[in-house]
């Protein structure tokens, strides 16, 4: 069950989308999100969806993988949709019973909001599916580099993030192991209500924390032994470089945002 977590999962490949510089992809994702929240009506939405669809096609990531990444969030999407459905007031009353009234505007907002969340997640999934965690943190570090001037520990934050990503599978494996060990001693993680389940998790968390701290300590020693002394004077084997395709991709992104803003102004 824990193995299903796809957070930070990367599908290696050699497509145009994979080859883009991680900084380009990070900026494009931001542009995409901005466009998504700027688009209010059909034409703008259509454009954003088109952009995502073309990106997915180019990346050769299977739609199935994107959908399975969306699955864990279906509840959030549903709740947002339902809340919008009931709480949006409008002019065109559709149904009215007891104290609940549903307006046509509510249906519209509900669909748009649900779609917006799903598109938001699908876009970020595409980013993590096509960019290795190391590239991602390298890109972030490079983009946030100017913040070092105001003493933001950019290198340290990026290193923390990449180590966290590195240890997710290890800790998941360990959790599975501890669960099996405790199941063998009669622990029950499946039955009972939410509170019973949470209680059953407690004896799981303690060994997990103890072991995580021991790992952290050993890892720090190992890193120091390998001459790690912060970002100062550090070089990288794989250097980031912006190619022509990166500038073209960014231009397309800017165009997308500009068009979406235009459509919003025009109200189409």
């Amino acid at each position, binding site marked *: 069950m824990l193995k299903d977590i796809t957070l930070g999962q990367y599908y290696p490949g050699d497509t145009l989308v994979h080859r883009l510089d991680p900084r380009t992809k990070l900026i494009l994702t931001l542009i995409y999100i901005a466009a998504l929240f700027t688009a209010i009506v059909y034409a703008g939405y259509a454009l954003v969806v088109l952009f995502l669809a073309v990106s997915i096609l180019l990346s050769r990531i299977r739609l199935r993988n994107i959908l399975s990444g969306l699955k864990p969030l279906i509840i959030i999407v549903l709740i947002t949709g339902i809340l919008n459905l009931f709480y949006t007031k409008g002019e065109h009353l559709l149904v009215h019973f007891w104290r609940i009234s549903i307006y046509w505007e509510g249906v519209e907002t509900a669909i748009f909001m649900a779609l917006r969340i799903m598109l938001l997640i699908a876009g970020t999934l595409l980013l993590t599916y096509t960019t290795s965690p190391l590239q991602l943190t390298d890109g972030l570090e490079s983009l946030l580099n100017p913040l070092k001037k105001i003493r933001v520990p950019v290198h340290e934050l990026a290193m923390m993030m990449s180590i966290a990503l590195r240890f997710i599978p290890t800790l998941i494996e360990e959790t599975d192991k501890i669960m099996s060990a405790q199941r063998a001693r009669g622990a029950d993680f499946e039955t009972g209500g939410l509170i019973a389940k949470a209680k059953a998790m407690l004896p799981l968390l303690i060994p997990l924390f103890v072991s995580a701290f021991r790992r952290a300590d050993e890892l720090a020693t190992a890193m120091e032994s390998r001459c790690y002394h912060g970002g100062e004077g550090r070089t990288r*084997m794989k250097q980031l470089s912006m190619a022509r395709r990166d500038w073209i991709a960014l231009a397309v992104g800017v165009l997308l945002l500009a068009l979406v803003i235009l459509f919003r102004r025009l109200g189409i």
Partner: protein
Amino acid sequence: MSTIIKTEKLVYTYEGAEAPTLRGLDLEIEEGTFVAVLGHNGSGKSTLAKHLNGILIPTSGRVLVDGMDTAEEQNLLAVRHTVGMVFQNPDNQIVANVVEDDVAFGPENLGIEPREIRRRVDDALTSVQMYEYRNHAPHLLSGGQKQRVAIAGILAMKPRCIVLDEPTAMLDPVGRGEVLDTITRLNRQEGITVILVTHHMEECIGADRLLVMSEGSILMDGSPRELFPRVEEMEAAHLGVPDTTRLMYALNREGYQLPLEAITTEECAQALLRAFGHKE
């Protein structure tokens, strides 16, 4: 031959501990030798190992790595560049999500130029026979493979000495063999000084020199061939001896005259053949 590591009256007491863990160790290690370190649990092997690249600093006494005092802050990077360290748990010393990125970590910290890093990473991975796995995720490898990646990560820094603290303790026999072969080859072919802390007597047989630790000091120091036949002394230090020696020791107590210094399987088989072979 020159001395690469030297300890002078090394004493170390853990914070809050009553008695010192290391009690005045004097040790000199020649460059290019393969040194195995044995000792019962808690005898101070790991504590000693951690002194050899400045992770721990002596409470009193000195540790010199290639003449540099590890207690001096400005020497630390050079010390760690000279003496690489491999630990017991391979999971907790791999930093990156991709094998080759992990191997690059050390050279990157040294500020080496990217193309040279690439070359070193490829060489190091080839040297531990993990080149085909360079794009794999480390957590999907076997224990022996992970430990070889960890060794490659140290090799890529081109250290003159590698200290390994029970690198095989968490591995199955196959993984253990892979790692031991790799270490031996690095010592014999590339002349890297190896200090191997271990619990397995068999892993010491190929070493040039064997140190037996007990209660924070060095109890015995000599070649494995000299030390293993001293079965009673080894047992007094709560240690065993290789199966080969144990077998011949047991036979000798029954009145045979077998050479206890025949410690390799091959030599032992020869000795047994000479003693019993012609009787059939």
